[in-house]
């Protein structure tokens, strides 16, 4: 009787071990960040990208009309070297008309996804079109040295993606962060001055859809912000 009892206890103890190995009852949440003695600010070499006066009669009635690309340069300056990224937000997202933006990528690939496009304003209730903001993969420098463009999505969130070398440089408002790395590396590089050449590519709808009789301003507004990485 006693022997049987002991055997039973042993079996229970072993079952307990198996249970522990199978399932953890808890998960740890870690909240990280680093306070750095530095001050940083972003600046653009021009505050406005203009596609000029576009004669409607020269535009296609039924297809998207490509307005081409314009260049602008983003410079991030810090008083002490630190890692710093940047991201974008669309201030006029309610006017986005998703169109194919030809050769909008840094590699001249097309941009077609609404998640990569920004609103270009409205004519009455009609959305005029869309534009993209692309970081060029050449011309990126940290403290004067040519580097690689890195991108990651949802930086700092649980769903963050790993830093990867960017090939298209296509921005994704409120989602994607860019920064610079030593050429060939995928870890963000600390810098005092980071230079990021951008290109802005726009398209408007066919003129039948626009149905415009008066001069109408293209009215895109994006905010480029520092992204703490």
């Amino acid at each position, binding site marked *: 009787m006693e022997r049987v009892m002991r055997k039973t206890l042993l079996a229970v103890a072993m079952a307990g071990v198996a*249970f522990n190995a*199978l*399932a*953890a*009852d*808890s*998960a*740890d*949440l*870690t*909240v*990280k*960040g*680093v*306070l*750095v*003695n*530095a*001050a*940083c*600010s972003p600046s653009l070499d021009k505050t406005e990208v203009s596609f000029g006066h576009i004669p409607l009669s020269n535009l296609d009635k039924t297809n998207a009309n490509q307005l081409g690309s314009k260049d602008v340069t983003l410079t991030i300056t*810090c*008083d002490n070297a*630190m*890692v*710093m*990224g940047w991201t974008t937000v669309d201030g006029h997202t309610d006017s986005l008309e998703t169109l194919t933006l030809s050769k909008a990528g840094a590699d001249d690939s097309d941009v077609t996804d609404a998640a990569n496009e920004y609103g270009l304003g409205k004519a009455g209730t009609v959305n005029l079109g869309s534009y993209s903001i692309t970081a060029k993969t050449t011309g990126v420098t940290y403290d004067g040295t040519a580097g690689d463009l890195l991108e990651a999505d*949802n*930086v*700092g*969130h*649980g*769903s*963050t993606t790993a830093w990867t070398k960017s090939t298209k440089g296509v921005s994704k408002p409120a989602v994607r962060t860019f920064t610079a790395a030593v050429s060939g590396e995928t870890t963000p590089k600390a810098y005092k001055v980071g230079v990021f050449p951008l290109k802005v590519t726009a398209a408007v709808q066919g003129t039948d859809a626009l149905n415009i009789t008066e001069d109408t301003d293209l009215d895109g507004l994006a905010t480029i912000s*520092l*992204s*703490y*990485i």
Partner: protein
Amino acid sequence: MFKKLILATLCSATVMSGAQAADSVDLKVTGTLVNGACTPSLENGGVVDFGHIPLGNLSKTGINQLGSKTQTLTITCDSEMPVAWAIVDNKKDTLANIEVDNAWFNGGNATASGNQFGLGETSAGVKIGAYTVGIDGSKTTVDGANGDLIRHDTNQEPWVNSDSGATQTFGRNETIAAKGSLEPLAGKVFVYPLKVTAAIQGTDTLAVTDDTQLDGSATISVVYI
């Protein structure tokens, strides 16, 4: 007639309870042994990262809001059962009880220390700030179906609807009920979208000269119900 009836009921109730004055009261101990267990998991090993923050861009004297980072808690059970969870702050003694803006998914701010977690200390022992963990009750699911977030605080029954999705740093259990119900649902996969929102003190108060880590740590544990 009606009045008399009520009177009669009251009398009998009073008399009965008074007369019985029993020496003992029964405590029932119940539970259900189920074959299975549940495991909580977070994305990215449970890490949220507010990145490298340039102190020169922050307010010297005001509270600095660092915004929110999202996380997702998934509790997976190997057989269907109702299960809740609770969160405990491992750094409670480092909490600086400052307002955390937009801490909850309904847009509410968090001011009470019971809703806030510690973010660590500077090398000089200054408490850096606070963070909160909010649950998006509109997107909680059990086995893929949307349900209502419900909670109860220790020794407070019954379950109540959690409109704000605010967690407490101790003693609050969270689970999911069918839409419009307050009865915990049984299931195998429970999903809770979370956001972690942080605020830190003014840089004059922090007085940091060297790189200083934000150092928050909390543990989420399953509670069998």
